[in-house]
């Protein structure tokens, strides 16, 4: 079951006695726990019926005995175990047996929630959980889902977002729902009475989180032959203490890809074939194809050679890395 599906089931009131939450999407995991708490517990009894453990610090026996304790003055109790080691690491026979026994026959009045990031699917215990459909895999959401989610969030706030602003937001923040939620709340606060979220607002308030994004947009700008923007990008990346040689490698890679794409397109291959040949996602190939049109084959070769020369110059100590990157960009276009 994936996270969103599970959330829907829980909201409907179909609650299982045991859950194993896996995957890296912390946001969904938290949502599920919150929803479960809301459904199962009565708030004033929380201190009696809700237990939260760190799985790597508490012994299994203690946790299970807690799970088997009947609830106090309410219908159900909930035991949350975070950072559970049982499903990714080796554990001793005895513990495995205990766990399996409990899983065979879980206490009906308890909801045991086990939270981890990785799940080893070969383990006996995990197999059992999968069999009973108690595993919820919370993986990062797809881009299209992410956009839907953002739109939905904004609708709740009664705001609108322009298409290009949405693109930019997704590009800058990436696939971290926690951060996205923060950014959306910040943007909405900024808007105040205003209704429409524009690209400029997003640009002013949201900063790029991952370096990959900025490196990509740097080479993108080189591809578009936009020197000025490329230099601005370069500076902001260097400010983040990214090693210059890494940036140089990425620039070299971009030109190599451009040469490949250009060559392939000349041989009348479709972009789809290209994307499987070059093992790149389709949208990257599309972008590359657009950029490749702006260069001649010869220019690309020269650029690649120049990148290589810069590399040599840096490594032989003739040029200072930061400076040489600037020169490279100045000379490239």
């Amino acid at each position: 079951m994936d996270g969103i599906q599970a959330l829907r089931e829980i909201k409907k009131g179909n609650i299982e006695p045991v859950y194993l939450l896996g995957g890296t999407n912390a946001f969904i995991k938290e949502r599920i726990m919150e929803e479960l708490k809301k459904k199962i517990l009565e708030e004033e009894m929380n201190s009696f019926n809700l237990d939260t453990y760190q799985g790597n610090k508490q012994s299994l026996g203690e946790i299970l005995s807690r799970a088997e304790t009947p609830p106090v003055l309410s219908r159900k109790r909930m035991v949350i175990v975070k950072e559970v080691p049982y499903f990714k690491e080796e554990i001793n026979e005895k513990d495995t047996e205990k766990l399996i026994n409990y899983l065979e026959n879980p206490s009906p009045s308890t909801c045991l929630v086990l939270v981890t990031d990785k799940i080893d699917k070969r383990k006996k215990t995990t197999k059992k959980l999968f069999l009973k459909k108690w595993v919820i895999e919370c993986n990062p959401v797809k881009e299209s889902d992410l956009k839907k989610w953002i739109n939905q969030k904004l609708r709740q706030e009664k705001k609108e977002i322009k298409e290009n602003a949405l693109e930019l937001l997704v590009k800058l923040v990436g696939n971290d729902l926690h951060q996205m939620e923060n950014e959306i709340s910040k943007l909405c606060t900024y808007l105040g009475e205003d209704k429409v979220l524009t690209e400029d607002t997003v640009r002013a308030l949201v900063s790029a989180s991952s370096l990959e994004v900025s490196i990509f947009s740097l080479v993108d700008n080189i591809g578009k032959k936009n020197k000025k923007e490329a230099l601005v990008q370069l500076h902001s990346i260097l400010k983040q203490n990214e090693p210059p040689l890494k940036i140089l490698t990425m620039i070299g890679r971009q030109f190599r890809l451009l040469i490949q794409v250009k060559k392939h397109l000349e041989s009348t291959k479709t972009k789809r074939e290209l994307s499987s040949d070059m093992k790149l996602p389709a949208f990257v190939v599309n972008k590359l194809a657009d950029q490749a049109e702006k260069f001649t084959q010869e220019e690309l070769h020269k650029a690649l050679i120049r990148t290589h020369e810069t590399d040599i110059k840096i490594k032989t100590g003739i040029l200072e890395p930061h400076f040489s990157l600037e020169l490279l960009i100045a000379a490239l276009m």
Partner: protein
Amino acid sequence: MNYVSLYRKWRPQVFEDLIGQDHITRTLKNALKSGRISHAYLFCGPRGTGKTSAAKILAKALNCEKGTAPQPCSQCHICRGINKGNIMDVLEIDAASNRGIDEIRELREKVRFGSTQARFKVYIIDEVHMLTPEAFNALLKTLEEPPEKVIFVLATTEPHKLPQTILSRCQRFDFHRIGLPIMVEGLSKIASQEGVNVEEEALKIIARSSEGGMRDALGLLEQVMAFCEGSVSLEAAKQILGLEEEDIFIYMGKAVLKNDLVAGLRLVGEVADRGRDISQFVRDLTGYFRSLIILKIQGEEPVDLDIPWVSLDGMKRQAEKFSHDGLMCINEILTGSVSELRGSSQPRFVLETAVFQICRLEFKLSLQNIESKIEKLEDFILERKEGVAYSYSGQPLSIEENRKDYAQQSQELEPVSEDTESFSLTDKNSQPVNTEESSIEEFNKIWKDFLKELHGKDVVAYSWLEQGRPSSYEGSTLTVELANCFAQDNLEKSKPKKVIEEILCGLTGKKVTVKFILSNNTEANGIEVSGEEHESSEDSSFEGSLESNFENSLGDSCESSFENNNTDIHNDEFVAEVLKIFKGKVVDHEETKKGGFFGV
């Protein structure tokens, strides 16, 4: 001690005072108005842009006795208490000195207790990037499940050092560098309230030296004010900020623009006299020209690029006057001399040479120009060959026509080569180069002598060139055909090339530039050394039927001193050599096709 330094005296007390950060103040004010307070804020940005001030204003606005409002009163007990730092519920923690896990654990213990005096408990953690990884993890737990009425404000100059997990829990605000006009406005407001008259230009250079940090700017202003008393002039400001140093680079730029070698060398003398470290000076000079390149690219629009020079306006004007190629060329020369300086016992000499070169830039540029022209010419020759090849199939294209183009091309080239003469500083080569008289024949004649002499001087070059032969001579450029690209690569290096050119010059009495091209018959390389026309490698399918045409059209074009060796194998120089090496004799021979033994 009742003197308070300017930046403390004028620390922003309300959001309006926080200049240059409109996107942040608007968001925070809206948040206070609507009560949408996030439990953790992350303020990041360069120093002196208002992070800590914003955090304090936020703490005041949240806890002001007059009620949570976008505008703290700054009068009430709590507001004043926060300003003084004696309200227990607003804690300012310096993470740089409390970076361990124990401090954070202690913090976690105390977080649970509610606030005593104020409405919200506000933790301002400054320089948060200094925390240890363990401390971050401990803090993360608190950020994940924050107690009610507790607000964290993390401030840092280096957000990339924070773990992603922390970043994703905070509402992040990036403080920008304060723009120049805004900062000048702010500074002049403060200066006038301090009762000091400061020239606008002086404010501008102060603002620029501070690189967008208000605290730095106020510090500098204070320094200048202390120096001048009463009113501050541009000159005084320059003196205090040590900007006279920069002027020397600007003068150097001017000298380069005017090709004023004397001025350039005088500047070098000045630098040396002042006892400055020359290699540092060269490095700074490189930096100066690098900034000019950036300014050139940037053009008119103000872009937030890092240019650590104060005299930006003057530089901008200078950058406009330079050409892009010129700047790139200057940089090449200067970076070259930077590496030359390492371990050089004559730094001044190296610097002077560099200045020499950059002040006579046209020379170098025109060389580049010639290079590109030669390249064009080369392309043209190759094209021409193709043109001939095509003419076999279509109507025959007369060589004469091609020649006309060729002549045109070489005429185009001529003025440039004269230019070169006029720029070259030595006179020894200035004897007129008569391109008409010198022909490829002459070089063929002296080729053997030349090889012999080369063998004496540079054996390596000789071995590479042994298999080459002169193919054409136009406009003082001798084109030599080589068997393979390794030879070409190796000979293109400046050292062997120079030797070759010197020898040729000695033998012919003319200034000769050598250019190496690849022989077209790469597959048959080495075999055709003795002089088959290189055109013979044309598409072999043409060959049989076009043979006669081929000979007619090209025979005279090359004025071939090379005899066509296919007809008589016994006279063939190459075969003779083979026989010599293997000590054999010719028993029988079959007519080989054009294109060489392996060529077809």
